[in-house]
């Protein structure tokens, strides 16, 4: 399989190309090495290297200076000579001004208070006015919205200039601008006020640290603002989501029709039912060309083997027996409880055909269970395989060793908690990502570890196989998401852009895009082709812990530590619905196979079902989403169709079978 995507793409290169590198970057590398040697007092080596590379001390000096200059420049962002007591008055004055505004503008303008508060505080801290900073903080922190308190708590731990370097949160505030969106009317109000009063420190803060995206149209309402606010650095400016996204599904290769005929012959009497299932929009779409679908060859995909064809035919047949779900027909839920796990289960995954369930544990072990009566078997040893008749019809059956059959298999390899698992679509492989910074690929045929992918040096929070196999994406504490191919030991793409940990990732059903959710409270959609970020979606107020694409590829649902589930429309990047009801972190979201229902579950021991059909029916598709005030976010409580509580079992995984039976799983915690 020839995959050659790394050519001509704008990825960050991790490996220095040693052969034809540019001298400049080479020199930088050398200098870096020298610095390292100096730091660790390896004088002789340093000396030798210097001689060999003909680097003089002056070069080193300038490099050093440059470094300090840069860091100074970064920190000096907050340099100001203003009287520290002035800040309090300024902030209060701004608040009073906003309070005195008309109600329509008040809501929009009050969004400016949070970034100003943050930057004023940081300026005070930077200029060594610690007491003023403390007083300023304690006076106004409670005015900020509830969902900001988590960040504010982190901010408040910074109390002196020394703390400011190396703090991730502060780096973000310093280096990037806080994005606000407001209507032109509100903006002019604000501008007039600031100019009239000549509030110079305020003006500098706004100029230096804020980016106000002005739009023409009526000001937004409180609800609209709340629905999109929450990002670490505010909202998303209008240009971020302009790129076109091919969210349609790929055209399915023609399946072996004989399966259909066979079935027709067998179930001849059920003709009316068949007609119904043919109308199923999802099955229709596959045969038709979707205008929103990417070209088939946009991303090279692995070729389908005979096995895959068979698999797809089975899936298709199963899909025909699918139960139709709507608000009158709720699904049945089968719940798998882990007993005696001592709260050690950290991740689960269920294979697409619901035959395998994998669970990862805190101690680094991975266990795979069979959910069907057929046991898990190991492949025979090479010597035994040699004597098998390869032409036999049941060769796939013969290669397995019946003596090794068992209900579950243990995979040992990680030395840290296993945070995510993903079973490949053909059920031959299993990926696991762990606290130890590695991703491991396991074979589910020989039940051993095949590859250990090292790239994230920090915990890897999530890993997911592409729906077509071969590729997989991982997300980690190092603030990057990486795309890998199973046969490359280094990543094909590194998606950098999130301002904090990337906590979850998900492949688009057409395998052309990857969605990532982060602790910076945003969700990004990345293009596999060129590695660019094509969508930034806000709305979550805390860490995003799970993401799932709708089966038609157009919608994305995310759940997080703010106990809310948000549904976005990928065509515009705008939030469509906000589903509130959970009382604990949402760890799992799953669309039903026909996309009519959304199931969510998490730390509050409940599975909730939401009416996706209603969300789509009530979505205003004609509205011009370029004007934020036209976007409405559905947060009606009537979207909740059902709540099913477990007996003290956290819900870690949800999965709809091909026939739309909902499977949930999680560990039981004995009440203490």
């Amino acid at each position, binding site marked *: 399989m020839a995959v050659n995507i790394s050519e001509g793409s704008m990825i960050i290169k991790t490996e220095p190309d040693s052969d034809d590198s540019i001298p400049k970057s080479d020199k930088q590398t050398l200098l870096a090495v020298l610095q390292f040697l100096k730091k660790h007092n390896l004088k002789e080596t340093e000396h030798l290297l210097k001689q060999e590379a003909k680097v003089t001390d002056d070069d080193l000096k300038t490099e050093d200076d440059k470094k300090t200059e840069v860091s100074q420049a970064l920190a000096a962002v907050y340099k100001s000579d203003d009287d520290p007591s002035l800040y309090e008055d300024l902030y209060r004055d701004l608040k009073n001004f906003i309070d005195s505004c008309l109600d329509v503008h008040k809501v929009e303008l009050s969004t400016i208070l949070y970034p100003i508060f943050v930057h004023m505080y940081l300026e005070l801290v930077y200029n060594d006015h610690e007491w003023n900073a403390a007083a300023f903080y304690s006076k106004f922190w409670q005015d900020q919205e509830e969902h900001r308190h988590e960040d504010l708590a982190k901010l408040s731990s910074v109390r002196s200039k020394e703390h400011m370097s190396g703090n991730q949160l502060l780096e973000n505030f310093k280096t990037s601008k806080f994005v606000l969106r407001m209507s032109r009317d509100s903006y002019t109000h604000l501008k007039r006020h600031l100019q009239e009063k000549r509030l110079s420190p305020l003006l500098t803060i706004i100029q230096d640290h804020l980016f106000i995206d002005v739009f023409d149209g009526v000001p937004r309402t409180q609800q609209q603002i709340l629905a999109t606010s929450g990002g670490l650095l505010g909202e998303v400016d209008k240009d971020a989501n302009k790129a076109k996204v091919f969210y349609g599904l790929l055209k399915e290769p023609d399946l072996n029709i004989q399966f259909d005929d066979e079935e027709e012959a067998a179930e001849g009497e059920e003709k009316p039912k068949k007609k119904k299932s043919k109308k199923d929009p999802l099955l229709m779409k596959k045969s038709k060309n979707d205008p929103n679908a990417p070209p088939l060859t946009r991303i090279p995909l692995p070729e389908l083997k005979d096995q895959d064809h068979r698999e797809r035919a089975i899936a298709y047949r199963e899909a025909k027996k699918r139960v139709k779900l709507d608000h009158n027909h709720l699904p049945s839920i089968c*719940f*798998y409880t882990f007993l005696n796990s001592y709260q050690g289960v950290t991740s689960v995954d269920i294979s697409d055909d619901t035959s395998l369930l994998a669970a990862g544990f805190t101690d680094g072990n991975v266990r795979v269970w069979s959910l069907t009566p057929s046991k898990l078997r190991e492949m025979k040893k090479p010597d035994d395989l040699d004597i098998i008749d390869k032409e036999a019809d049941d060769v796939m059956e013969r290669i397995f060793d019946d003596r090794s059959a068992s209900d579950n298999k243990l995979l040992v390899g990680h030395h840290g908690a296993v945070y995510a698992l993903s079973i490949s679509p053909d059920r031959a492989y299993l990926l696991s990502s762990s606290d130890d910074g590695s991703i491991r690929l396991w074979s589910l045929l020989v039940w051993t570890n095949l590859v250990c992918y090292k790239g994230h040096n920090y915990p890897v929070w999530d890993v997911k196989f592409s729906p077509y196999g071969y590729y997989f994406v991982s997300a980690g504490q190092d603030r990057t998401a990486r795309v890998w191919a199973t046969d490359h030991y280094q990543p094909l793409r590194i998606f950098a852009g999130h301002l904090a940990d990337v906590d979850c990732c998900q492949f688009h059903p057409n395998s052309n895009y990857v969605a990532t959710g982060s602790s910076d409270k945003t969700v990004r959609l990345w293009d596999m082709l060129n590695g660019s970020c094509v969508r930034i979606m806000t709305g979550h107020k805390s860490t995003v812990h799970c993401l799932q694409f709708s089966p038609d590829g157009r919608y994305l649902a995310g759940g997080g530590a703010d106990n809310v589930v948000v549904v976005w429309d990928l065509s515009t990047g705008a939030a469509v619905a906000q589903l509130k009801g959970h009382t604990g972190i949402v760890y799992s979201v799953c669309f039903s196979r026909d996309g009519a229902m959304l199931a969510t579950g998490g730390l509050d021991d409940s599975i909730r079902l939401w009416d996706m059909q209603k969300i789509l029916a009530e979505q205003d598709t004609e509205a011009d989403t370029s004007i934020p005030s036209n976007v409405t976010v559905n947060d009606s409580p009537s979207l909740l169709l059902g709540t099913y509580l*477990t007996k003290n079992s956290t819900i870690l995984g949800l999965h709809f079978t091909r026939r739309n039976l909902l499977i949930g799983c999680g560990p039981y915690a004995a009440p203490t």
Partner: protein
Amino acid sequence: MASESRFGSILSSESIKVISESIGISGLADEAASFLSEDISYRLKLIVQEAEKLRQHGRRTKLTCLDFDQALQIKNVEPIYGHTNKDGYIPFRHASGGGREIFFTEEKEVDLHAVVADPLPKIPNDVTLKAHWLSIDGVQPALPENPPPATKDLQKQEILDTSLKSGGNRQLKRPHLDANKHKHHNKHKEAVMLKNLATHELSVEQQYYYKEITESCVGPDEQKRSEALQSLQFDPGLHQMLPRFVAFASEGVKINAVQNNLALLIYLMRMVKSLLDNQTIYLDKYLHDLLPTVMTCVVSRQLCLRPDMDNHWALRDFAARLVAQICRNYSNNTNNIQARVTKKFSKAIQSENVALATQYGALAGLGELGPEVIKSCLLPYICILGDRIKSVNEGTALNSVDKIAAEHIKRQLLKYLPAVLKTFHNSTETVDEFNVAYGYLGPMMFSMFSQKEKSLAATTSAVHQLAVPRSTLQLTQRPPQIVIQQQPSTPVPLISSPFLNPSPGLSSINTRPLSSLPSTPTGVPGQKFVIVSQTRPSTPIGTPTQAAPLVKLVTTQQSSLTTSISAGPQKIVVIQGGPKPEDSVGGGIRTTLLSGPPATTFVQQPSTTTSSNISGNDTL
């Protein structure tokens, strides 16, 4: 650490100094310590923030030491090895050497021989996977793997929910004729939103359960009864049957109070107690039935056939505890249960013309409500109570029942008052002062007060034992006399109802193993039967005609569960109207709190025609 975050909580510089001394750096300058404390606090917070992430990804609700260790590792700091989370208690020690520092938990020396000789410890159970149906077509089946059908909050929500519910599935199932009409259809649907009629249907199993439980609760088999009470106390998911159980108890008390069937009243109270103890049911909406029921058992003028013999006092005490429990658990500013109950009780205490048994009950009720209530609602009326007792003891009316009651009242006072008196008076006060304050009961109160003082003193200094405390109960009463008063007893219709069934003999009270009920009757065998009929201005109300509807209700209840109970008149709560003067106080309280069915229950006629009354001493 979200909302209640405070600005700048930092380690104190004193702690820093102590820590520095513990690692051998003494005499740390103040300035250095404060700088260090600030910096260390900041670093610690950073690490905790990191550990918090690990907790979230570990899908846990509790932060563990391992999270902290891991966070240190992420920050490229050498983690503190050796101490792990051991039930939250971490006694760890510290050792250093060779440039490494290691923390470890101290472990005991183990005798290897013992280990070898011992049988192998049991291996902890392996992780297993268990499947069950969490929901079948959207309905959660009642399996042991699933939580109880409705939590307390949910029950509350359900009861308080006054919003309109969708008018069932009928409209939704109507065939959609035209897609264009869809919107219109929706509107139509909204227009006919109706609140669902609450249909209280019990499944066959539930009916069977109800029958079993109620029969065991009042039946003769003690073993079965305790099982039934156990079930009522601990089983979740009873809320469906709650209206029935409450009705059963309240109707049962109504009838058995009339019948003076002490045993059944006790059984019913135990049933109420079990219901009150059940943590999974939401009882608020049934208090209007339960409270009058329990109150009846506290203050009713007569609860047993032979008031001088039977230990109805224990029932009153038990019921009083139930009232106190209800007040503790359910009283709030809206329903004001405790205030209303207290008012009723204290009115009974103050009243001149209520039965002493009623006053006893009221006393018990107030006593159970705690020292504050005793202080404000009981102590001021001790005088009145004293006069009452005085008139009984010294009065000419020959009435041994009253005398027994008076004795019990005194004993009750002895039980509740000393603790309160201690806080109220000081030891310098004399008998006279007590006499002024409490009238007739003054000497007794003083003696119990001083006794309390002495016992306190005795415990503090053993030498200080001066006088043997005098017996607190004075036998000032005259030898009781025989009174025979017969009234034409109204015939009670004989109906086959569980409440009227006299089969559980009264003797069974004595053998019941209910710890909270003193089971020995105060009356000694051979004691007199004194049948009292107090002169009442009004004629007895309990006539057969009036009793009839009540009885009828019970019989229907027995025959068909689903109809009669919801149709019964027990749900009416009217809290108004002062006690009618001509009524007995017991009845007055009952009617004012309940005022549902007419107060036919307070038939004063003892149905037994006693033959002889023998006088004797009260044993104390």
